[in-house]
């Protein structure tokens, strides 16, 4: 029923846009390699609603351990919403409802009496706009370890802060001014500070919601390098508007269209020979 409605909607959308004049059946299931063995996270039939409006339709996909998966798609296709449902950040949005299963190491994160605090310590998030706290650089990093009791002494804390900043490639730039406000850094540095902050609590998965969209190309390149390094230790899901970025940093790419997951395939394949016509249309710039 829902699917039929969605199909009708996307069909009318297709007609109304001359560039999008494609005879495509969006009702069909996602194409490509959706599932993998021993996934870090797996989503099954996830539907997300904002009030009466449905934003995500029946998305099922796995994310493997230490994988970088990129989510691309036109604006408003629901990729950010989907990302935020992976660590329940949608809980803070009024009227947002998630159906289906999101499994982290086989346990559903939407089951009742789940500890959201622990979940978010395991699944960290980096936002579109750098949002350092109005505190010193040191305090920004120390915030997570402090609230989770990860440091027993000041020495521990210093180590965690130094380690996180080193992993985020920011240590050399800020080690002389750890106690100055984090808001005084440049945009790119702030975003790396936010990444350092996220990894300070040793998460297993890091969600990145367009982490480079507010940054200049040089800062973007640094973050992309960083993502590659981080993928050795972390599982990363990144939403991006830049197809080049997806091609550069990710192992697999998921293409979303109007709230539906159209195709998931190894990144190289998505950008060279996409399976689905809509994906091809998007990556060749026929709409989006």
């Amino acid at each position, binding site marked *: 029923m829902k699917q039929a409605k969605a199909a009708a909607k996307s069909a009318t959308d297709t007609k109304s846009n001359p560039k999008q004049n494609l005879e495509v059946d969006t009702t069909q299931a996602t194409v490509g390699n959706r599932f993998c063995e021993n996934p870090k996270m797996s989503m099954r039939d996830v539907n997300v609603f904002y009030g009466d409006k449905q934003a995500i339709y029946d998305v099922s996909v796995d994310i493997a351990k230490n994988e970088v998966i990129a989510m691309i798609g036109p604006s408003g296709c629901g990729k950010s919403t989907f990302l935020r449902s992976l660590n329940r950040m949608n809980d803070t949005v009024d009227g947002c409802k998630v159906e289906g299963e999101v499994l982290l190491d086989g346990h559903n994160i939407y089951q009742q009496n789940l500890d959201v605090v622990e979940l978010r310590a395991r699944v960290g998030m980096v936002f579109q706009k750098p949002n350092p706290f*109005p505190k010193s650089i040191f305090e920004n990093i120390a915030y997570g370890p402090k609230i989770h009791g990860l440091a027993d002494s000041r020495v521990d804390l210093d180590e965690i802060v130094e380690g996180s900043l080193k992993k985020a490639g920011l240590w050399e730039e800020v080690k002389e001014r750890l106690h100055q*406000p984090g808001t005084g850094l440049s945009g790119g540095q702030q975003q790396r500070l936010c990444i350092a902050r*996220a990894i300070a609590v040793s998460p297993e998965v890091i969600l990145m919601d367009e982490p480079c969209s507010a940054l200049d190309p040089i800062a973007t390149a640094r973050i992309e390098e960083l993502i590659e390094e981080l993928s050795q230790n972390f599982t990363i899901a990144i939403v991006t508007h830049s197809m080049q970025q997806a091609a550069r940093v990710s192992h697999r790419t998921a293409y979303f269209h109007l709230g539906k997951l159209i195709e998931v395939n190894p990144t190289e394949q998505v950008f060279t020979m996409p399976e689905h016509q809509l994906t091809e249309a998007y990556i060749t710039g026929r709409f989006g």
Partner: protein
Amino acid sequence: MESSNLFLLMLALGACAFYIGRGRSLAIASPLGGVRHLHSLPNYYGLNALLWCALPSMGLLILWLVLDEPVINSIVMGALPAELVPSTKADFNLLLNKISNLADGIMSADGQPAFMVAAAESMAGLRVISQWVLTAICLILATIGLYWGWRRVAAEYRARQSVERVMENLLLACACLAIFTTVGIVFSVLFESIQFFRSVPFFDFVFGSDWSPQTAIREDQVGSSGSFGAVPLFVGTLLISAVAMFVAVPIGLMSAIYLAEYSSKSVRTYAKPALEVLAGVPTVVYGFFAALTVAPFLRDLGADFGLTISSESALAAGLVMGVMIIPFISSLADDVITAVPQAMRDGSLAMGATHSETVRKVVIPAALPGIVAGIMLAISRAIGETMIVVMAAGLAAKLTANPLESVTTVTVQIVTLLTGDQEFDSPKTLAAFALGLMLFTVTLLLNIFALHIVKKYREQYE
């Protein structure tokens, strides 16, 4: 012509000027091919003519109204024979008043000395002349202005810029008026205070610990030497303010946090205005609530625990004042907390912080400058509050830090000093001005301090 009629006439002339100026600009525009060929819109030409017509004549009108009475008075008094002019200032003013009343016809001329009747007649005559001259000059000025504004209408004339300039200056004038009023108040208080400090040494006043302002009304009165040590008053003020802040800061802040962070939209819609109603209760109502309900209740409660609580206690006044101040703090704090960007909260929540950790460690620190500013404003308000303390705090100037006793405050003493039956230039009455000056200084320092704190934290947090 009466000044008020003259004023209305000026307005009417100004309206005419507007239409004439606008009409002329339209007439100029139509052969050129429309309004687009004018430099400014027709309304600006109209406004320009209006300003030329009305502003100079209005200015003159105001200036004349301010100056004509002193000028006429000095002419009349100057014309009196020297031996009849009283030497003391008070008698001089009395005579002037009598003449003026005679001229107005308020006082009957029967039985008055002939020289006064003559002076009154000359005064009345001068007034009539002044009025007619004013009318004539104003009308001439307005007409010249109207003509000038009309003449200047031309396709290239930059009416828009010239109107903008006048507007800017008008706004500046309003700002200056507000500032000069404040300065004027300060100076008037300052001069009376200086007069007070002639009879009471400055340091005795500021550091003296004994306050009993009863001075002798008659020469032979006993036991009323008068001593003006302001310390007990300021201690009382600070004591009551402290009690008030103890009530208002936690309750106000926490209700603001609840409203801004936790409450659902529907609760907020009703709770916020309900809380702000508290700010709308007249202070006199709070006053009798404190005096008639809270104070006796506290006294009885204290009696149950074996405490002696005075029936006019600092505690009662402070508690009620605290309730009065809650909406100030909650409303301001709510605004600044709501203004903290959602990105801050998301960042903290995504780290696995709970809602209350987020509020305590991220939201409140980020909102701190605004919260501190709100609290400082509330303190200024508490220090200057009068009605509650007049009714509930008592009059005895005791130097005590015990909130269960009755104390008095600066504002209460100002009220009692000025409502007495003393001569105006007695130290007792003048003491009110000195107290006012000190109170003003204290609140000013507090405000400067608050601004400083806000600035300091803002540098750190933005």
